[in-house]
């Protein structure tokens, strides 16, 4: 039976501090986005201002997210034609983000999510 300890050094500092999460974005700078559907993005990079490279990884700017924490509502613009209306939901069971490092064989807890932004309605036209 193989076993490994989960390292929580990164998250522990967060839990010990009084920096409780009140926003969708965690103090670690992560967030959880859920869409009822498939996000279709091009596989290859193009000469367009939406395509760029970050630390050797090609990234594409696929949309814009606007969150209103007061009304717990969110709007997501996808591509040039779609607008999705969603909401900020507090998770019943918080979700821990674990990183399984294959090279060193260690497991590290990276973050804890207690909120997510969920979009379960049909995309609307931008106009």
């Amino acid at each position, binding site marked *: 039976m193989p076993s490994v300890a989960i390292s929580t050094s990164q998250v522990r500092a967060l839990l010990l501090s009084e920096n409780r999460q009140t926003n969708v974005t965690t103090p670690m700078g992560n967030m959880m986005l859920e869409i*009822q559907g498939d996000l279709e993005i091009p596989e290859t990079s193009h000469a367009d201002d939406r395509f760029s490279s970050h630390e050797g990884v090609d990234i594409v700017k696929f949309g814009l997210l606007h969150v209103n924490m007061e009304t717990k509502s969110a709007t997501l613009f*996808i591509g040039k034609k779609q607008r999705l209306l969603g909401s900020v939901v507090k998770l019943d069971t918080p979700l821990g983000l674990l990183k399984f490092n294959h090279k060193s064989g260690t497991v590290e807890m990276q973050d804890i999510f207690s909120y997510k932004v969920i979009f379960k309605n049909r995309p609307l036209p931008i106009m």
Partner: protein
Amino acid sequence: NNAIKARKSGTSMADFFKNQYKVEDRDRCDRSDKTALAGLNNDQNFRIWVKYKEGFSDAVRKNVSWHDLWS
């Protein structure tokens, strides 16, 4: 009434974001037909969209093996 309200606020917000995208229809009109067509073709090459799913489905829970976590 609510729908109209939502649409109104939606469009103003959409305009705001559209401006951020630098999507300007006026520029397109100013360009010659050839470049406009090329731009349209380019757009089709990398469309970004959400393929909406009509419903939501959770699969049956299954056992987890050591290999599943490290695969």
